């Protein structure tokens, strides 16, 4: 982005004034279209019945806080990463550990399964994202085949493969997101616009989709065009850090979980926040969110050790799940929607169904 000299008559003050008037205009345009609330549109729908969701499996084996997890597309394998530097691949049906890698750093805050199921990516305080091919030979030393892909100037907060094993998208404490070629480690595109740490990202669900959303400590959620690096939409209604962002299954909206103890839903076509999921009794931050397959349910993990299940359309809470003995750090629904997995600072992961 070139730094242009001042145009005639342009000063910091005129720019500031234009910035203010554009912001006001943006709010005005958004407000004009705010003709109804989401829960009003949902009034006539039947309320959801009682939910019986229990812990069906507990995955024990991490020696310290579980920070992140991801499902394999085969719907049964899971990769999880922890504060002590360990990355473990589990078979969630049997609870067996299939692979374990020790990273050279602690606080492995990000991990992701490759679409093929043949590799995992992870990173954290090492400021990098590394890819480990998974070997069928359980005795093989995975660390030997490690490939360093991404390099940031601060911690890695989140990573995700794109539609193939060939590219990885990363977000970092350095305030940027970046797209990398796995094979060469080359930086393909970088995304600048956040003014503080970026904590989370999520790719749009469509096959042809070329956008992703990111959320960070600047309380903003930004939507990006992956090809141009352009920030196409920005939302700033949270009152504190956004810890997690997740697309609605149709790709037309996304949810956020924040330290302000609320989760919110933003619609991309209406270009505004359309729902807030909160209660006076919930005062701890939401660390992680995910939708059920139809988008009707939003599962949110909180720092008060619970998982709240929200009716996305009506805005009400339909269940509260207890079980973890410390903060819930990550929540992900399985690819076929039959279960969801939660990871916690109590060192365990739980599968709920």
């Amino acid at each position, binding site marked *: 982005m070139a730094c242009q000299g001042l145009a005639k008559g342009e000063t910091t003050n005129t720019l500031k004034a234009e910035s203010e008037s554009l912001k006001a205009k943006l709010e005005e345009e958004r407000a004009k279209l705010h003709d109804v609330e989401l829960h009003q549109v949902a009034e006539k729908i039947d309320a959801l019945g009682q939910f019986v969701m229990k812990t069906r499996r507990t995955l024990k084996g991490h020696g310290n806080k579980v920070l992140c997890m991801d499902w394999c597309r085969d719907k049964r394998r899971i990769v999880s990463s922890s504060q002590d530097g360990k990355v473990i691949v589990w078979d969630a049906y049997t609870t067996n550990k299939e692979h374990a890698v020790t990273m050279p750093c602690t606080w492995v805050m990000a991990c992701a399964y490759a679409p093929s199921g043949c590799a995992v990516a992870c990173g954290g305080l090492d400021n990098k994202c590394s890819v480990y091919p998974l070997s069928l030979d359980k005795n093989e030393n995975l660390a030997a085949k490690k490939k360093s892909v991404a390099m940031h100037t601060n911690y890695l907060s989140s990573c995700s493969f794109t539609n193939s094993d060939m590219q990885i998208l990363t977000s970092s404490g350095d305030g940027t997101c970046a797209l990398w070629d796995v094979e060469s480690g080359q930086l393909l595109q970088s995304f600048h616009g956040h003014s503080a740490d970026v904590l989370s990202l999520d790719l749009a669900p469509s096959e042809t989709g070329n956008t992703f959303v990111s959320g960070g400590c600047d309380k903003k959620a930004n939507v990006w065009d992956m090809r141009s690096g352009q920030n196409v939409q920005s939302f700033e209604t949270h009152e504190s850090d956004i810890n997690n962002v997740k697309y609605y299954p149709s790709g*037309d909206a996304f949810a956020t979980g924040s330290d302000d103890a609320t989760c919110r839903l933003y619609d991309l076509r209406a270009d505004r926040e359309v729902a807030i999921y909160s209660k006076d009794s919930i005062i701890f931050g939401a660390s992680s969110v995910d939708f059920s397959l139809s988008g009707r349910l939003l599962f949110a993990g909180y720092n008060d050790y619970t998982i709240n299940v929200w009716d996305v359309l009506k805005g009400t809470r339909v269940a509260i799940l207890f079980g973890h003995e410390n903060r819930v750090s990550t929540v992900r629904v399985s690819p076929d929607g039959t279960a969801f997995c939660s990871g916690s600072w109590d060192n365990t992961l739980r599968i709920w169904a």
Partner: protein
Amino acid sequence: MFRFRRALLQTSANSLRTAGIMSNNNASSSSVAVAQKAVKQLRLEAKIRRINVSQAATDLKNFCLQNAHKDPLLVGVPSSDNPFRPPKSCGLL
């Protein structure tokens, strides 16, 4: 542990914010560049086409309703079909 992340970027975040909103700095080239960037970004965002919330909300609602029957966590599946739920009669032991 995560409090350090804010301290690290607080100074740069502050400078970006003040340049855009409450600039009381002298016009240094970096704050001008930041202000120009902010204005350019806002112009782009102001131009995008938006639809009514009523239409957006209706589409979200319809998507939920159309896919509800395929959502195992919403409607439940028979225990025999859910690999995580124990089947009613346990044939393994």
